[in-house]
């Protein structure tokens, strides 16, 4: 499947409740021939807060300004939640089902500062 399909999918928990659209995909991996090399892989998904805080970099904290845009995206950035790959039941383009409930998902800011 394509990353673009993931980015336009909806996340649904085991009770059928929708967590909204996937706004970002978190990846990990080290290119190159060295010892630490690892293939690129999807480690998790991000939902909640609307698209802009993620597209503009405020949700992951790489953008801290300008003040006006940070303020406008602050609430959305706080609402973002991280869906670890381990929780995904089915990787079906369009609808991604997860085990457990939406409420158990960690907030993205907590996940990033672990």
């Amino acid at each position: 499947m394509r990353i673009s399909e993931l980015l336009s999918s909806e996340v649904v928990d085991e009770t059928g409740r929708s967590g909204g659209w996937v706004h970002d995909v978190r990846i990990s991996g080290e290119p190159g021939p060295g010892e630490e090399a690892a293939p690129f892989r999807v480690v998790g998904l991000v939902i909640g807060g609307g698209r802009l805080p993620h597209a503009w970099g405020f949700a992951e904290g790489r953008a801290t300004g300008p003040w006006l845009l940070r303020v406008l995206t602050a609430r959305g950035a706080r609402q973002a939640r991280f869906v670890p790959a381990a929780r995904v039941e089915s990787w079906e383009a369009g609808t991604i089902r997860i085990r457990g409930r939406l409420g158990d998902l960690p907030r993205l800011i907590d996940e990033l500062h672990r």
Partner: protein
Amino acid sequence: MFAFTLGTLSAIGGFIDIGDLVADALVGARFGLALAWVTVVSVIGIACYAEMSARITVQTRRPAFDLIRSRLGPGYALVGLVGAFAVTGLLVMAELSGVALALQLATSVHYLLWVPVVAAVVLLLIWVLPFETMERIYGLLGLTMLVFVVAVWHLDPDWPRLWSSATTPVPPASESWPAYLFFVVTLIGAQMTPYEMFFFSSGAVESRWGPKDLTEMRVNVLVGFPLGGLLAIAIQAVAFLVFFDAGIQVEHLAETVLPVGLALGKLGLAIALLGVFAATFGATLETLFSTGYQIAQYFGWSYGKVQPPAQAARFTTVVVGLLLLSTALAMTTLDPITVTIFAVVFSATVLPLTFLPVLLVGNDRQVMGQLANGRLSNTLGTVTLAISTVAALAALPLLVLTRGGSS
């Protein structure tokens, strides 16, 4: 030192293109200097973003157009791209007509016969000339536009009246508020052009600027752009002094330079024509390339003037194709003034899409490190973005409401 002066002078001369020329002359004839404040605001805004994008280029060693797609996403970036393509097509069309009309004035050969000739010369020059040479020539020749400033002096104006007009930001008795606001948007679109913003950016990449070149760049911006703005206000002033009281509106390209002829005689007129020629012809080369770069960077193609044309085939095809399209449009005898007004208004509608990614990257500490935006950059940048967003939203309604500014 020489390079620095060259840079500043190019910035001054390169400020005025056909959009500015037409908009400033039109505005001066109808509103006097009541819209000069828009030029002041535009200069501050574009200077802020020119500095920001040059700083980004210094840090990332990539040209500024590179950022747009990664920050806006391919969807919105495509909207901006299509807008830029359409605007450039229209402006180049108007510029080709402008040069052809000037040649018609000089030779009495009908301008439609000149259009393909001018297009062929442009094609030859973009194939052969290095980019920086073009930029320098264009900028320096554009300095002849300073003749407009001289003309203002020579017309021995009633200075208090000029001052009063400039400090009364309301429409004069003969004009309506919608028309006034329409021309606010028009001037914004004409004077805050993406090309100016990225003016230093390409040079910075090709000349491999480092952080120490930043100071030089900032001086270029702080001196060059305001002087360019002064030129723009001079064009407004000259049109005001000659046309306003008589109630004459600017309807033909020739009328934009006529006031200089009245002030300074044949020599002045010749210099003004040279300046207009440089501004329009030079701008044709610049905007064709600028749009070509923008498209190439959206799709990630290699681009010309760095690679030989055969290795940047898509880029070359797009630039040549755009020129041919504009030539075809120019042959339809559409009025260059109307076309220019439409072009700058459309440019205003997509302007926020050019500012936003630059502002976002400027604030990205992971990319910018020490060179990230400070308070001043961010404040001016946010205000400019806000103003341009309001203008963008108001542009098309005002265009329709005032029927292209005619009422």
